[in-house]
């Protein structure tokens, strides 16, 4: 039985996988693959953010009556990560392997810490708080479409 936790955690793993692929391609200097993989990675993570920000967080905030709590912190971190994606996109365009590697490493630590907090605290709380509406929330998230980068 799928819970909100398992659904979103599974998506974290999916994003990790694509991250590693893109990083490998950029390190090897295979810029065609790197461009493609990075675009896929960015799309996957943005999609994940959208699922959270458009469906899960609002549901959580409504149920707890609190918009200034953990979801606010998570939204702020999403912003930080979006900024790093932009920087990474620049390094792909410039074929800057060292730049890509450095920002990727930084994003990885930031992202992993963020995911840890979600998986250890926010997601379990959501399972509890939104348990009754679980299927509805998951359905809402599944309906969010991944935007293919131009």
């Amino acid at each position, binding site marked *: 039985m799928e819970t909100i936790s398992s659904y979103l955690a599974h998506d974290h793993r999916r994003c*990790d*996988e694509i*991250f*590693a692929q893109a*990083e*490998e391609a950029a*390190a090897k200097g295979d810029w065609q693959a790197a461009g493609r993989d990075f675009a896929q990675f960015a799309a996957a993570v943005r999609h994940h953010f959208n699922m959270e920000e458009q469906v899960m967080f609002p549901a959580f905030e409504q149920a707890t009556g609190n918009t200034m*709590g*953990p979801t606010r*912190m998570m939204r*702020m*971190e999403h912003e*930080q990560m979006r900024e790093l994606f932009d*920087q990474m996109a620049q390094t792909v365009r410039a074929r800057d392997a*060292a*730049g890509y*590697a*450095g*920002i990727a*490493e*930084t994003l*990885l*630590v*930031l992202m*992993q*810490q*963020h995911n*840890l*907090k979600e998986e*250890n*605290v*926010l997601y*379990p709380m959501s399972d509890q708080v939104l348990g009754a509406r679980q299927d509805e929330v998951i359905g809402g998230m599944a309906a969010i479409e991944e935007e293919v980068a131009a």
Partner: protein
Amino acid sequence: MGLSGLSLEQAPPILVPLRFFLTAPLFLLLAALLLLAVGPAIFVSRWSPPLLALTHLFTLGFMAMVMMGALLQMLPVLAGSPVSQPRLVAGLVHSPLVGGVLLLGSGFLSGRPLLFQLAVVALASSFLVFIAAVARSLLRVPARNATVVAMRYAVAALAVTVTLGLTLGSAFGWQLSLPLLSLTDLHASWGLLGWVSLLMIGVAYQVVPMFQLTPAYPRPFTRWLVGGLFALLLLWSAGAWFGGWFALPAVSGLMLGLVLFGATTLYLQTQGKRRRPDVSVQFWRVGMTAMLAAAALWIAGWLLPALQNHEAYPVVLGILFIFGFAVSAINGMLYKIVPFLVWFHLFSRKDRKGGVPNMKEIIPDQAARRHLFLHLAALLLILAGVAWPVPLVYPAALALGLSAVLLGANLWGAYRVYREHISKRS
């Protein structure tokens, strides 16, 4: 609701952990200088005062220094529970620790009781503040997380280690008549197998999957290993102190637990989604291998009593565990924590305009790799130096000293990047 840690308002100021990390390499350098000064005689026996001084330069001056700084930084993120008054706590922990280690080392080298007395006072105050501050944080958090649980056990083991250490120091300082050999064995075991191992394991549960995108450690592991090891340590202590048949099985259990941990970590690292060789990962591989080597040596010693009775046996065990395992793993962690901390503090500034150097610009890979190479050279030379002290102690000391200089340069370089950018307004 405890989800603090990554926002700038809730993370401790950068110098709270950084003062610990920046001081640690200096103690490695001191260790090298001591090795150079004393020369081949140092490895004669585990009880030689210079070796005791050297050991504590490593265990307190480097290892405890970094681990305590890291805990003061990590607790907010992992436990969602910041240490209150972080600057004050850091100051009250760090300064007496530095003074205490220097006094303790001097005490061992000179044999003067006054130095031991002062060391005891300094170290007692440092650890008292640290354990009190950290325990408060750890107890406030529901034990949801295997790493937090491991940290609790590790800090408990630290309390035991410190109590035993202070007792021993007092014995030297105030000429008390105590069973020094038994107390030392207990002190070393609680320190290495308790505090160091349990904290490393707890940290590994998070960082190995985090940095290499490996699968998580198996659930039975994360549920039982740390608590099990702690219980075995208690059992062994009772057996060693009161004399019981269960002392040997308890130690065997401890070794088995550590071997399982080392082997599992090495295995997980082969399953990482990130394939690129990463300096931190390589430091950890060295660390796990050294730990397995130490365990293998321990088992060999148990099977061959002649080996166990050799004077050099505990020395080699100590080198493998302390320098091979702990220092290696800690170096690996430093190369992630320090660049990320600098980046994070620069990136999160409210008045930031524009980009910030990334982690690999803060500490370049090449610089870290040079340190790794020297660290390995030092490890191999020190080990060889036990077997052939007469020529090899000197190149060992040199390699150790150079590795300390490189580590220091890398970490201070990162701090310099921070200082340069923090004053920039655009």
